[in-house]
């Protein structure tokens, strides 16, 4: 029997299939769209085609309580923390950059959430900032990292606001700034916003769809923090953490956050 963890995020829904040893054996990423059940069913259908799965499924994210199938929901922050602690087994700070939210989490030596903070009601510093600018510049988000790696110097983006950032970039293009340098500035703008959430004192773990799909992010973070890592497929960590959290609760018969 396999367990399923699903993270129903604002932009993407992430599903993992987990075996009895708590190892992830399959992944699926799908756009969330407007129907949480449709997104979740896509994941369940794929996994159940090849494996015998058990219910309830374990959910987190914006759509965590919306499913029509049996589910147990968790806070995505606690689920993500659980997965990160499972991976590294030590005190750390996490920066998670997703489509709509950027989060800072401080995890204690025993794996508890010591502190967390989310971005303000603003797209700056989130994946939406990059996606919107990529759309306006007519560059695919997958090409963004490639462009940035060709940068010779950073062009600093001052605007907090996504809309104003676009007009600022138009001004830079008119002044002859090179696109790779501008894109490096866009990445650094997102990083600067995420670092406003809290001072980083410990080992830093970078997670979420943005670092997964924009590998240069890790490199840029590592320029600021030598002690920084981003696990492979970190975008799926909250989904995985859901399952781990449930197992842990069963073992200890209590809510160990």
């Amino acid at each position, binding site marked *: 029997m396999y367990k399923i963890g699903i993270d129903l995020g604002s932009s993407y829904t992430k599903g993992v299939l987990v075996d009895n040893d708590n190892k992830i054996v399959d992944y699926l990423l799908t756009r969330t769209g407007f129907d949480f059940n449709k997104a979740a069913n896509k994941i369940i259908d794929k996994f159940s085609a090849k494996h015998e799965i058990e219910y309830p499924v374990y959910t987190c994210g*914006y759509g965590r*309580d919306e499913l029509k199938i049996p589910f147990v929901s968790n*806070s*995505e*922050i*606690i689920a993500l923390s659980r997965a990160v602690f499972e991976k590294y087994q030590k005190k750390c700070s996490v920066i998670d950059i997703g489509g*709509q*939210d950027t989060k800072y989490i401080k995890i204690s030596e025993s794996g*508890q*959430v*010591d*502190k*967390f*903070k*989310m971005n*303000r*009601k603003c797209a700056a510093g989130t994946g939406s900032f990059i996606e919107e600018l990529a759309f306006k510049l007519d560059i695919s988000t997958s090409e963004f990292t490639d462009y940035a790696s060709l940068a010779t110097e950073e062009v600093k983006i001052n605007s907090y606001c996504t809309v104003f950032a676009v007009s600022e970039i138009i001004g830079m293009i008119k002044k002859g700034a090179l696109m790779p340098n501008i894109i490096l500035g866009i990445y650094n703008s997102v990083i600067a916003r995420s670092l406003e959430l809290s001072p980083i004192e410990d080992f830093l773990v970078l997670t979420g769809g943005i670092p997964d799909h924009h590998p240069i992010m890790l490199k840029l973070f590592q320029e600021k923090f030598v002690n920084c890592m981003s696990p492979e497929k970190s975008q799926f960590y909250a989904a995985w953490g859901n399952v781990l959290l449930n197992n842990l609760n069963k073992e200890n018969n209590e*809510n*160990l*956050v």
Partner: protein
Amino acid sequence: MNQERNEIIKLKSVGELRNTMANYFSRLKDAVDTGNKKIAWCTSVGPAELLYAMGFEVYFPENHGAMIGASKMADKYIPSAVSLGYSPEICSYLTSDIGAFLQNETPLQKSGFESVPKPDVLVYNTNQCHEVGDWFMFYAKHFNAPILAVNTPMWISDLTPAIIDGVANQFKDLVPELEKVSGQKLNMDKFKETVGLSHDGCVLWRRVLETAMAKPSPINFFDSAIHMGPIVVMRGTQYAVDYYKILLEELEERIENGVGAIPEEKLRIYWDGMPLWYKLSSHAKLFSSLDACIVASTYCNSWIFDDLDANNPFQSSALAYCKLFIVRSDDEKQKYLEKLLKDFSIDGVIYHDAKTCGRNSNNRYGLPNRMNDKNKIPYLEINGDLCDSRCYSEEQSIIAIETFIKQLASRK
């Protein structure tokens, strides 16, 4: 959300509260209809005692702003004020109130008013903020009514004689101007009596709020935010005193019988900042479903003016209204908060950063971190606003609140 526990246990005194508030508005309407009494507009922590003592009926625009917020109409009204040049970044009490006025609407129409009561005089105190002056000026110009101010220094650390004397003198300077409007001389005995009643009402209000030190707490923030009505608008009258005696009796009875404000209280939360008026009910249900009781708040505690002294009305008014939390330095605020967190056995603090009310958002100058460094009580900051619901991201905030409650539960 635990659907079985997503309710607050309603206080029986709500019926009496409704009567007390309805009678207040009825007296105000009578003054509008008959002209038998002059009407003064006053800020919520302004010199209400002096105005009541001089025979005015007193109208509080901030109470009106809260009514607009709670009725979820602010988003309809704010754009009208913005189109007139009032920024959406400034006080949303101001923008929603002026916007409603421009649209000829008011929640008071349900109580038979045609519009807000026309002021004979407007009186404000800047102890809370300076925006109240801009707000009142709009109406002073519109109605061609006199506007009077008490200008209180900001960020007060020590309540020095220079500060208190200066403010007391400003209170005294109001008198001849108010006499011109009211047509009658200030009766000092009446003023002393009014200050005495205000003191008694405030002491009762303090005792009401302090019942929440009991475990389980018989009252929570969402109750208090409603039941504070009389201490805001009837401070200095027998009506407020009478009402809080009734409420206090019910709360003491609850304590005796072990009845809490929510079905199951596992965590005790402190709320700093203003309520999100348009979310009062849904927040009450959310916290109740999480077995978390918000037992104390900066906001509701702000109407405890128990330094008022009938024997020394001007000087004690100055002291009471300068001692107010919102006008103090961050060091004084921190001392005050630390005491409340201890007295009310607080597990966690929530700071509401209200987009349009910096003065009531105490998280903006590092205070939460400084507090946490000292007492290690976890805190959460949520972004929202008092009236402008466009500044609030509900889904994001619910995730943050649920996570915070689980974080606190894991420490128990």
